[in-house]
C-alpha cells in the first residue's frame, strides 16, 4: 500500500492503494464515483472513460500511480458547482440518447473531450471520437444527434 494524492473533479484526495490498482477501482470504491463503469478491463469498450488533463482515456488499466500528478475529471464532475449541466449532458437528455445507459459515461466523456478540441465537429469527426466506446442497445443514432446538438448549445 502506498499513499497517493489525487486531484479529482477539482478536489484533492489523499488515499491508500496498491500502486498497481487501476484508477477505475480507486474512483469507484474509494471515492464513491460510480460514473465510470467496468466494461471489459482491456480498454476495448470505453465504459470506464475519464478525462485526464482534458483527454478522454480509459481508466480500467491505468495504474493509480501514473495519475497522481494529473487533473482527473469524471462524469460526476462535469456539472458546474451550482449544478448546471454541461452542454453535452443537456443534449443527451434532450435527445433521450440512451436505453440502458451503461455506456453513457464513455459517450459523454468522449464527447466533452471532442468538443473541447473541435467545437463544431462534422459527422465523421464525431464517429471517430466515439469509436472507442461500445453501445449494445443501438442508441448510436441518438448519441450522434446529441453530440451535434451539444455543439450548438
Amino acid at each position: 500500500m502506498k499513499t497517493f494524492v489525487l486531484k479529482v473533479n477539482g478536489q484533492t484526495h489523499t488515499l491508500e492503494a496498491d500502486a498497481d490498482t487501476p484508477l477505475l477501482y480507486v474512483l469507484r470504491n474509494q471515492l464513491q464515483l460510480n460514473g465510470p463503469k467496468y466494461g471489459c478491463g482491456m480498454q476495448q469498450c470505453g465504459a470506464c472513460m475519464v478525462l485526464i488533463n482534458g483527454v478522454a482515456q480509459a481508466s480500467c488499466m491505468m495504474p493509480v500511480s501514473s495519475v497522481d500528478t494529473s487533473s482527473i475529471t469524471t462524469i460526476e464532475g462535469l456539472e458546474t458547482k451550482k449544478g448546471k449541466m454541461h452542454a453535452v449532458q443537456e443534449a443527451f437528455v434532450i435527445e433521450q440518447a440512451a436505453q440502458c445507459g451503461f455506456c453513457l459515461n464513455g459517450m459523454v466523456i468522449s464527447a466533452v473531450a471532442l468538443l473541447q478540441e473541435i467545437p463544431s465537429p462534422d459527422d465523421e469527426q464525431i464517429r471517430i471520437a466515439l469509436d472507442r466506446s461500445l453501445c449494445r442497445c443501438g442508441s448510436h443514432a441518438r448519441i450522434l444527434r446529441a453530440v451535434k446538438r451539444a455543439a450548438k448549445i
Partner: protein
Amino acid sequence: MKSSRRIFLKSAGLLTIGFCAGIPNSAKSASVFNELPESLKRHPNINAWLEVLANGNVRVFTGKMELGQGIRTAIAQVAAEELDMNINQVEIVLADTARTPDEGYTAGSGSMEQSAMAVRYAAAAAREKLLQLASAKMNLSPAGLSMSNGTVQSRDGKRKMSFSDILNGRQVTDKVDANVNLKSKANYQLVGKAIPRDDISQMTNGRYEYVHDLRFPGMVHARVVRPPSYGASLESVDENYVRTKADLIKIVREGSFVGVIANEEYAAMQAQQALRWSCKWSADPFRGSTESIPAYLEQLPASSEKVHEQGRIAAQSFQHSAKYFKPYIMHGSIGPSCAVALFKDGNLHLWTHSQGVFPLREAVSRMVGIDEEKIRITGVPGSGCYGHNGADDVAAEAALLAISFPGVHVRLQWTREDEHLWEPYGSAMIMQVSANMQNGLITEWVYSVRSDNHSTRPGGKANNLLPSRYLDRGFDAPAGGYSGGAYRNSQPYYRIPNQQVYAHLFRGPLRVSALRSLGAYGNIFAIESFMDELAAASKQDPYLFRLNHLEDPRAVEVVKKLRELVPKAETIRGEGIGIAFSRYKNSAAYCAVAAQVAVDEKTRKVKVKKMWAVIDAGEVINLDGVINQTEGGMIQAASWTLMEQVQFSGNKVTSDGWGSYPIMRFSDVPEVYVEVIPQPEQEVLGAGEAAQGPAGAAIANAVYRASGIRMRDLPLNKNF
C-alpha cells in the same frame, strides 16, 4: 375478406386465436378490455399494484424490470393518466420478491402488454374507489367531484381532499373489477406521447444506480474462476500459492465451484488471477468448431415436430429451394453481470439485474437448500441484457459465496471473459425452405428450422443456474429448454394456401438460451430472404410481391408506408435497397424495414448506410420508447447480421472478449429512421423485438440488389 375471418397462429408454443381484418373498433375494444391482463388476474388487489403515500403521491409496483426499455416512465404515464396526476407524483418500484407482484420474466416484449395494462386497470379501480370514499366524506355525489394532481375536489373548487386524507392511512385493497371504467382515450394527456425518461438525466451525470454501483458498509468483493471448457471439472487447487499473491479473506470451494473473497476489489482480481494459475482441471472431450458448425449441427440427432400444416402439398419437387444459416450469437451486454448477496441470521438477500426475481428465487432456493420464504431478491437495473445473459448465474454464485461468508454483503462482479465465455448464447439455426408458384403467387411452401432450444431460463430449476453444474449436489445437466422459441415466426404471415412447417430440435455444443426475439430473427431472415428470391425469380417488385400475399390490413399498411418513405432510385453503382416485413410472433407488433447498403466490388464487404422502419405496435404508451426500441433493434440486428458469430474450437469457446467477438462501432453504424403508426384503439403490443428479424433480412436483400449476390449464411461479413 370476411370480417369474421379468424386466423390461427402459433404463438409461444401454444395455439392462440388472433383476430385480424375488418373488425370494428368498438367490438375489438370490448373483446380486449373485458379480458384482464394475466398479471392482474394473478394479483387482483389494487394495493398489490399501487399505494398512496403520506404526501399524497402514488407508488406503483411492477413485477417487471428496467432493462433499458424505459419501463418506469411508461408505467408512470399509465398510472398518472388514470389518476389525473402529474407524472412526477408517481414513483415506481421495480421487481422485488418482498414488495411487488410476481410477473414472471421481463421478456417477450411483455412489459407494456402485461404490467402497464395491469397498472392501468388497478389505477382506474383506485380512482373509482377514491372518488367513492371522497364522495362519502364530503357528502357530495361522485359526479360532483373531480380529480387532479393527487386531490379530489368539488366542482366549485371550494372543497378539496388529498388522496392521503381520503384514505387516512389505509390503502385501497379491493379487487380490480374487469368492468372498471377506464379513462376515455380521447382525454389522454400523457399516454401516447413522447414523455422524456427522467432516468436518462441521472445516466448523464453518473448518478443512476446500477446493481454494479451498490455499496454497503463492510461490503467485500468476490471473483470466481471457471473451468477452461464446459465439461472440465476441478481436480486440485494450490491455495497456498493464491494466498501468497493477494491479500484475501478466503477461498471458497465446493466441487468445481471456486471463488475468492477479499476486502478490496483489486485484491480479489489479483487473487482471481493467481487462482487461475493454481487450478488443475480435468480433460474435456471434443465438441466441434466454428468452421465445421453448419455441417456438425446437420448431423446431430434431432427430435422433429410438425409446427403447422395448412392445405395439402401435392408437389413432388419444388421450383425454388434455399437453405439459410444463423450462427450462435451473443447477448453481449456492455456491463458484465454483477450481483450483491447478504446471508445473515439464516436469511438470504440478493440484489440482481435478473429478468425474473421470482423464478430466480425458486431456483436459488433449490440450489442452496434455503426455503423461499427466507430468500428475498431485489431487482436493480443492470446493463441492457437483450435476453437471458449471466444475470441469474452471477446472483446464484454470489449466493453461494455469501452463504460461505455470512454477515456481510458480498459483491460478485463477472469479468468480461466470464460473460463472453459463459453466457447462454442465442442458438444457431439452419432454415430450409421450398416453394412453388403459379401466376406470380406462392401456392406451396415447405419450411423447416433446425435449432437448439431458445430458453433455458432458471424458471425455478436449479440446474439451469450455471454454478449448479459445478457443485457436488446432484444437479443434473440442464434439461432441454423452451423449444417453441426455435419456431417463433417460422410460419409465414402471408396467404399461402398449402403450407407445412417443421422444427427439428437438437442439443448443440454450446450453452444457449433466450436472446432477443428468440428464433424469430433467424426464421424471418430466412422467410424474408426467400420472399425476395421468389420476387426476383418471378420478376416482381418486392413490395408488391409481399402486398399480393398479405391480407391483414395493418400488415398492408406498414409495407405501403415503408414504400412511401424509402427512395426508389438505386442509381449508385454497388449500392442497393432491400426490404422485409414481419409481424412479431405473428401476433404482436408489425414492422417493415428497408436497408440501404454498399457492397465493395472487390472484397464484397457490406456496409449498411441507412435503415428505415415502419412499426405498428398497437396502442402506444410512450412514443419515443417505441422509436428508441426500433432504432436500437435495427442497429443491433445490423451488427448481428454483418459481424457476429460465436467462435469455438475443440472443446472451448474462443470468443473471450470484444477483440475476438467484435460488435458494430460508431464508424459502421447506419443512419436510422423510424415511423410509428399509432393505433390508439388497438391493444398494446410490445415493441422491443419487432425490428430484428426484418432488419436482418432487409440487409441481405439489399446486398442482392446492390451486387446480384444472394447471401444466405450469416454473418454477411464473416471474412472480414
